[in-house]
């Protein structure tokens, strides 16, 4: 009788699994991008647009990021396929970068993620500029010059304390193009960072990663870019979101019930709007809660726009015509599991503080 090879049974199992997989694909139209970890890496396909805003784009981006996170939690090897990605926008890209950076900090050498180079040259340049390719183990191969106007002025920084010295290179990189009055944006960023450190990580995020020390860091990520005469600054945290960080008092809860706002989506939108309007704060202390007004004023005084996405809520302010503009609100099925704030201000038309006026006033006059 012929002796079977030692690995005969193993090979038979592999052949059987491949046969079953082909059958499943044929019968149920299963996504062929999935591959069992035993046979190789899992391919995760990035969407055409990595952005937040319009409903289907928001959902595709969030689903993509969720898939990456779940794959990391499952310990799978993942290859991110950027070949279909045509466009990347600040909010979605920063969210993606933040999640991958956080996963890498959590898993260290056990983080088995790689990617393909994007087919779109501009997308590749952006990913190179912000360090995403390096995070995913890819070498930089493009030359980026000031002629790459849409790319060259993207800057990125991250930290876990309230110290914007960390982001000094980022701000100095664009500082020469900004009048002094634009430092209101820095003020808004400072307050946003302070809020992150004080409130965003008070409770577990709830993504099954909270047991890792790196996941509990009070980390923030910030982008700045100048594109087509607009300054865009975005800050991201992967914390609990503004609605979860603001417990309502009993009296406010009664008002909400009576006014029929006691539905999750309306409650979350109402809480977030209230926080920005009156400076509502988790602590309830009289000397606190001023930072959110700073965040709003950083856009309103410069005639710009403010987008706030926190968990499933999105508020959009347009202060171009009205400094007291009310926000347009959306509620998405997919939560970003954190908070993103984007300021967009036009560089041409806002008031500039006249720095040559040395204005010395004694307090009390």
């Amino acid at each position, binding site marked *: 009788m012929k002796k079977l090879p030692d690995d005969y049974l193993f090979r038979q199992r592999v052949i059987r699994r491949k046969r079953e997989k082909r059958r499943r694909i044929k019968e149920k139209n299963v996504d062929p991008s999935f591959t069992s970890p035993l046979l190789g890496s899992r391919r995760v396909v990035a969407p055409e647009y990595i952005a937040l805003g319009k409903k289907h784009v928001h959902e595709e981006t969030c689903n993509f990021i969720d898939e990456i996170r779940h794959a990391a939690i499952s310990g799978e090897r993942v290859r991110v396929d950027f070949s279909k990605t045509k466009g990347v926008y600040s909010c979605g890209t920063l969210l993606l970068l933040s999640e991958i950076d956080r996963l890498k900090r959590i898993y260290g050498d056990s983080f088995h993620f790689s990617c393909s180079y994007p087919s779109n040259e501009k997308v590749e340049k952006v990913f190179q500029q912000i360090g995403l390719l390096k995070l995913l183990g890819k070498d930089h191969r493009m030359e980026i010059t000031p002629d790459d106007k849409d790319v060259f002025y993207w800057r990125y920084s991250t930290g876990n*304390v*309230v*110290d*914007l*010295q960390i982001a*000094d290179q980022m*701000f100095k990189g664009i500082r020469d193009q900004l009048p*002094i009055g634009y*430092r*209101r*944006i*820095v*003020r808004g*960023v*400072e*307050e946003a*960072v*302070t809020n992150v*450190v*004080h409130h965003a990580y008070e409770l577990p995020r709830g993504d099954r990663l909270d047991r890792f020390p790196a996941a509990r860091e009070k980390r923030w990520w910030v982008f700045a870019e100048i594109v087509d005469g607009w300054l865009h600054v975005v800050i991201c945290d992967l914390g609990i979101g503004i609605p979860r960080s603001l417990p309502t008092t009993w009296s406010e809860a009664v008002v909400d019930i009576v006014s029929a706002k006691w539905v999750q989506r309306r409650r979350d939108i109402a809480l977030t709007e209230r926080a920005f309007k009156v400076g509502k704060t988790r602590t309830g202390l*009289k*000397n606190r809660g*001023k*930072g959110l*007004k*700073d965040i709003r004023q950083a856009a309103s005084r410069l005639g710009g726009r403010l987008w706030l996405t926190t968990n499933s809520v999105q508020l959009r302010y347009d202060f171009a015509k009205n400094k007291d503009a009310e926000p347009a609100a959306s509620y998405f099925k997919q939560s970003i599991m954190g908070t993103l704030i984007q300021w967009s201000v036009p560089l041409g038309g806002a008031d500039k*503080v006249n*720095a*040559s*006026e*040395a*204005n*010395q*006033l*004694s*307090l*009390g006059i």
Partner: protein
Amino acid sequence: MKQINLALEFSEYPAGRYRSDGKYSGQAFREDFLVPALRSGEKVAVNLDGAMGYGSSFLEEAFGGLVRDEGFSAQQVLDNLQIISGDDPSLIEEITEYLKQ
């Protein structure tokens, strides 16, 4: 008169409230610079120009904290502290508001 240039002597990026937030917080500026200067008996001038920006958390903790936590009265501070802010004069009014709260 004692002069303090915040951006040169403390930080170009003052931010945060408490020392636990980071190195250049309002509490650190108040305890390490403002309080010793005010307690020296001299009048104090603080120049805010040159920094990249001042968040309300920093300003409230640094200046409002003089009254709330350090035992100064608002009038004492108003009489002995001069704020210089050519880059953004509105900061003077804001600081006054925090002292009077």
